[in-house]
């Protein structure tokens, strides 16, 4: 069943999608060097973190990027922001290629693209006051000469994210996890960016606080037309905030679709397994649910198999899957999946 709300947002998503994309990622590949092994270190070890990933993000849109640990979702987000060397592929911001942006360009781009981190305890300098933390991006970009000059702007930003006006004078330790995450969001908003990569922004927060931050992010999006790449492993949260969702497995996007299609009629066997693995907080419903078992574990990223990377866990695996890697193809309007047998 497709909810009313889903229809509405998917229409909204299409309206947004009419214009040119803000971010355009094509065939992105990131391979990390992981030292050497073997006799006298003759063998080079490489981690294939992201493999041929392509997607667009439009202004005002949230793309949810979901996957288990090691699936390459964070690396993808960081690659867009120029914080990870890219092996091949292209990334466009508006109509400008930023694939191999140098230090200068990354710095210039940070006015338009910002990052919100997962751990609100580790991402704020404990020795800086909140006002200095939030004003820092303004200083770095020379928009203000000193923190004093930024005071008005910082106060506005703090109010925007729902922090008390006296918060600026305090240090991070005085705040709870949820409030710290608000500080992180205020800092990301300081330069009025158009695009924010949110890397698991609510994973470290308790349930009762999580909703506060998700709602704040949605409000800010509605107000400023922000585009989000929302990276998460929690499918239930992603469903609330995303217009479209990409499911990653072992460095590949296996399915990319409008959000109601992901949840109502998933195509890829991994998407199905992932959805059925999330327990529903309602005992009778949970008991009645059929779990699609998917035995085994993700492949070694240092030595990924030829063909489809899901082959070792897939219930429908065939010889084609072992020989050739599938690419994303259209399944129905608004839904693409990478699978030979579905």
């Amino acid at each position, binding site marked *: 069943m497709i909810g009313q709300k889903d229809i509405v947002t998917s229409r909204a998503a299409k309206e947004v999608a009419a214009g040119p994309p803000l971010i355009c990622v094509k065939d992105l590949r990131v391979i990390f060097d992981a030292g050497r092994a073997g006799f006298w270190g003759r063998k080079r070890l490489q981690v294939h973190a992201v493999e041929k990933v392509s997607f667009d993000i439009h202004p005002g849109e949230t793309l949810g990027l979901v996957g288990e640990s090691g699936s390459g979702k964070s690396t993808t987000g960081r690659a867009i922001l120029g914080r990870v060397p890219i092996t091949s592929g292209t990334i466009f911001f508006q109509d400008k290629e930023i694939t191999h942006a140098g230090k200068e360009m990354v710095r210039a781009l940070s006015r338009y693209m910002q990052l919100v981190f997962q751990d609100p305890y580790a991402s704020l300098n404990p020795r800086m006051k909140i006002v200095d933390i939030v004003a820092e991006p303004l200083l770095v970009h020379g928009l203000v000469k000193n923190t004093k000059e930024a005071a008005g702007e910082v106060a506005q930003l703090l109010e925007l994210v729902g922090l008390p006006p006296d918060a600026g004078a305090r240090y991070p330790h005085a705040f709870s996890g949820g409030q710290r995450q608000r500080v992180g969001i205020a800092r990301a908003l300081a330069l009025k960016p158009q695009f924010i990569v949110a890397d698991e922004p609510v994973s470290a927060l308790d*349930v009762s606080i999580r*909703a506060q931050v998700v709602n704040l992010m949605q409000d800010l999006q509605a107000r400023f037309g922000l585009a989000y790449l929302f990276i998460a492993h929690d499918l*239930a949260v992603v469903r609330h905030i995303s217009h479209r969702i990409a499911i990653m497995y072992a460095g590949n996007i296996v399915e990319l679709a409008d959000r109601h299609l992901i949840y109502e009629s998933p195509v890829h066997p991994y998407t199905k397994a992932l959805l059925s693995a*999330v327990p529903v907080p309602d*005992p*009778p*419903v949970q008991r009645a649910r059929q779990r699609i078992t998917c035995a085994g574990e993700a492949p070694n990223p240092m030595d990924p198999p030829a063909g489809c990377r899901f082959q070792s866990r897939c219930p429908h695996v065939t010889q084609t899957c072992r020989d050739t890697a599938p690419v994303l193809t259209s399944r129905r309007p608004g839904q693409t999946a990478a699978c030979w047998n579905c």
Partner: protein
Amino acid sequence: MNDNQNTPLLEVRNLVVNFYTRGGVVQASRGVSFQVGHGQTLGIVGESGSGKSVAVQAVMGLISNPGRIEGGDIFFMGQSLLDPAGRKFVRKVRGKDIAMIFQDPMTSLNPVFTIGTQITEVLRHHLGMNRDQARKRAMDLLGLVDINAPEKRLKQYPYEMSGGMRQRVMIAMALACEPRLIIADEPTTALDVTIQAQILELLADLQQRLAVSVILITHDLGVVAQLCHRVAVMYAGRIVEVGDADQVFASPVHPYTKGLIRATPRLDVVTERMVSIDGVPPDLISPPQGCAFSPRCDQAENACLRPQTLTPLGDDRHVSCWCAIKGDTR
């Protein structure tokens, strides 16, 4: 030891645990009481800092400096675990009749010994088996938790295994002495959802086959829904509601339980907006007077400043809320 089926397997009565820190005395457990019956699974849910882990650490005798158990008692099969006279009983029980599974299987296994060494150590210490017997039993145990090629696995070190596999080893070790009670403290929090599903299924299956009792500590209501017969909801060092899991989920009484269930996003339901609980959990160095949830509760009134205890509310449900007791708002 009292093996009467009528005595609960484990009973925690009015447990008070304080931590003496530089910042002040943290009242982690402020009078926690619960029971676990034979063959039953009790889920303890709560957010970080609610005292859910502290309660079971006290059962296992894992409260150490600066923490102190300063009140209440813990009974296992009718016998006190805190009574200094029963030291010998306690040493025999902990690790043998009560086993524990921790959150992070990487840090709870010793990285410099093989899996085999670590499992056989338990068997030789508690059951006095010799080398060969222990090795054979260890292989059986690995088979029990669905680990293939146990002979090969016994020779491996923890780093050679994935997170899910390590958690299976932890479960095998917990099962080694045929415990009557398994305490699992966030056993799947560090795992991916597909692996979590495998481990939860394994736990449910073992619980049924071996008829052990389980205490499952988690912050995920979905995990409770999947595995538990009864559920206790903790907030700020106290249990605020306890009862049959189906009933608590279907008709929560305490405002915090209601809020928690509403705030947990569901895969199968689409809502306009996520529901949050305003405010933040209290500081346990100086918890609020009376009901600790009252500053965040929209039903709070003057009565909520009075101290309160878990009060029975029919059909095995206990709630600690003045408004609920007065109105029985179900």
